[in-house]
């Protein structure tokens, strides 16, 4: 059911899809990195994202810090949170069965949500406005918020930086080694704990950047705001091939565009929008179990 879709409307939808997809991509990278190294679905990632949004909210709206100071503090605190979670909830279980680790991740997610509800109440908080970034400008009938352009740019820059780090630096090499073979990497004298902590630090920092940009575009902060983006971004990471940074970005974009375009072309189905991510997930898993850019994994016998 397409009601006279004009070129303008279509272009507008593409812009919508690009900025949403880039946000998904930013968060998906964090999932992919942790999964690549620990083979763990970090269920708490969406909630780390949520906490980052609260940190920013408190910095600007409650403590009246300048935005740049707040951003730095937010990223710092989020890194601390992510690394602490790994330290407390994942590290002790590293040699335990996979299931225990997964349950622990779910537990952390559940705990963060409940703590946030308890501390900050279930009411939404208004995220401070950044008029410079949110006041739209118009090209013809197209409305574009500057933040919608900033998001893909930031996502692209961070992805490139990350790829450089992974491929060219010593830490990146260590990460790749741990990802390929945990035990051998250990024997090679790589400091596993350090590498894993760094991974969580980077993943959390990306979640923080994602949260700041997300809230600029969707300015309300809620304890459960991380749940749905968290799930969707994990799916984005799987679509692209989990463990692969470029794949996460690709997956994020695919997901963002599919959601928006489904709404655009099938307005009657908008109620099913949240289901689309899962439908794509199942299709991908059926036909490309390793995602679009993922490598086949062989189990050792």
């Amino acid at each position, binding site marked *: 059911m397409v009601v006279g879709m004009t070129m303008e409307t279509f272009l507008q939808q593409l812009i919508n899809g690009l900025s949403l997809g880039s946000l998904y991509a930013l968060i998906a990278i964090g999932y992919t990195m942790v999964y690549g190294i620990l083979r763990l679905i970090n269920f708490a990632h969406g909630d780390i994202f949520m906490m980052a949004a609260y940190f920013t909210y408190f910095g600007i709206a409650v403590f009246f810090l300048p935005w740049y100071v707040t951003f730095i503090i937010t990223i710092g605190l989020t890194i601390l949170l992510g690394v602490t979670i790994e330290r407390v909830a994942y590290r002790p279980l590293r040699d*335990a069965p996979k299931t225990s680790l997964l*349950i*622990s991740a779910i*537990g952390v997610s*559940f*705990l963060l949500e*409940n703590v946030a509800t308890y501390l900050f109440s279930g009411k939404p908080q208004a995220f401070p406005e950044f008029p410079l970034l949110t006041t739209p400008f118009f090209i013809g009938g197209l409305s574009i918020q500057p933040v919608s352009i900033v998001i893909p740019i930031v996502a692209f820059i961070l992805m490139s930086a990350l790829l450089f780090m992974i491929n060219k630096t010593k830490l990146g090499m260590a990460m790749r080694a741990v990802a390929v073979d945990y035990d051998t990497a250990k024997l090679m004298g790589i400091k596993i704990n350090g590498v894993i902590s760094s991974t969580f630090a980077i993943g959390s920092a990306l979640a923080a950047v994602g949260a700041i940009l997300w809230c600029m575009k969707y300015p309300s902060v809620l304890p459960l705001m991380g749940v749905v983006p968290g799930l969707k971004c*994990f799916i984005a990471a799987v679509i692209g091939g989990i463990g692969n940074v470029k794949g996460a970005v690709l997956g994020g974009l695919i997901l963002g565009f599919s959601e928006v375009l489904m709404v655009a072309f099938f307005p009657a189905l908008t109620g*099913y929008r949240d289901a689309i991510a899962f439908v794509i997930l199942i299709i991908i898993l059926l036909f490309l179990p390793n995602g679009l850019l993922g490598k086949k994994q062989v189990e050792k016998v």
Partner: protein
Amino acid sequence: MNETQNSLGAYLKLHWKTAVFLVVLLIGIGLADIFVDSYMRRLLNLCAIYVIVSLAMNLVNGFTGQFSLGQAGFMAIGAYTVAIFTVPVESRTAIFYLEPMAPFLANIQLPFVVALILGGLASVVVAFFIGSPCLRLRGDYLAIATLGFSEIIRIVFTNTQSITNGALGIKSIPTISSLWWTYGTALLIIIATILLVYSSYGRAFKSIREDEIAAEAMGVGLFKTKMTSFLIGAFFTGIGGGLFAALLGTVDPKQFYFTLTYNFLLIIVLGGMGSISGTIIASFLVTLGQEALRFLDEPMAFGLDLPIFRPGLRMVVFSFLLMIIVLFYRKGLMGTNELTWDFMAQKFQSIKKKLSRKKTSTEGGGK
């Protein structure tokens, strides 16, 4: 095979403790059914439903080692089947007041038991479609895919107005209040699970949990066996969902948000992944515990106006407990053990030994 073992008499001789126990249990339920008030009755009913659903989850997650998070979705299917088919025809126009019920359903009303079983079967059918792609995949993908499916089910139920009444949900479902419905079903399902787990099929489930590659090399078909366990689990969960709908008298999609599954996860982790008795105990502990911890949400706990006691604290404490169990008591209450007579006798012996040893050691210290 020894012929006498087949006779009832011989069986009773061998398991007389269990038989006596069963009789006591039935009398206990009967007494409870007569004497408890409706609040307690509701809680006890909820406990039994949690036993059913948790047991189903443990069959898949604990015994077969397949990490599935689709409980909420399967419950929703069972619950909606019961709701749709048992709501009295005459009150349907009032309930479906935004959009009338689809004509092919509008005049079908089934007895509760039929609807309940139909709900279980419906969730088996859905489970088959979910399982076909997912059970071939690596374990952690199953978790996310089942979670996803459970969300899809909820979203579909929200949007199919003429069948499920969408967000309005269905009310006026004839309710059950007697404990016999839930406890009777729970008992049947517990017994079925025990018999299954201690059969060749149960051992095949466990072998997959222990080592997929070895299991396959021993002739255990991975996909088929996982699927069997998954479908049985879905059936039980659907039944649990149906009872849930009949207990509450109303269903709507929001009840089946995926966080509902976390309740059951907590139960099986607490009770021990792969322990039937652990699951049963934990179901009661968690359900009754959630009620008992209500004071945490009340500002006036202990007669003190402490600001830390306010709504939300209960869930914080609860999720904190889950973390503690996962981190420090990874095996839960029972591990993979069962509370059998032998097990209890052993425990009793070891405690006795410990006590007597302590005694002697203190005596020794006194000299």
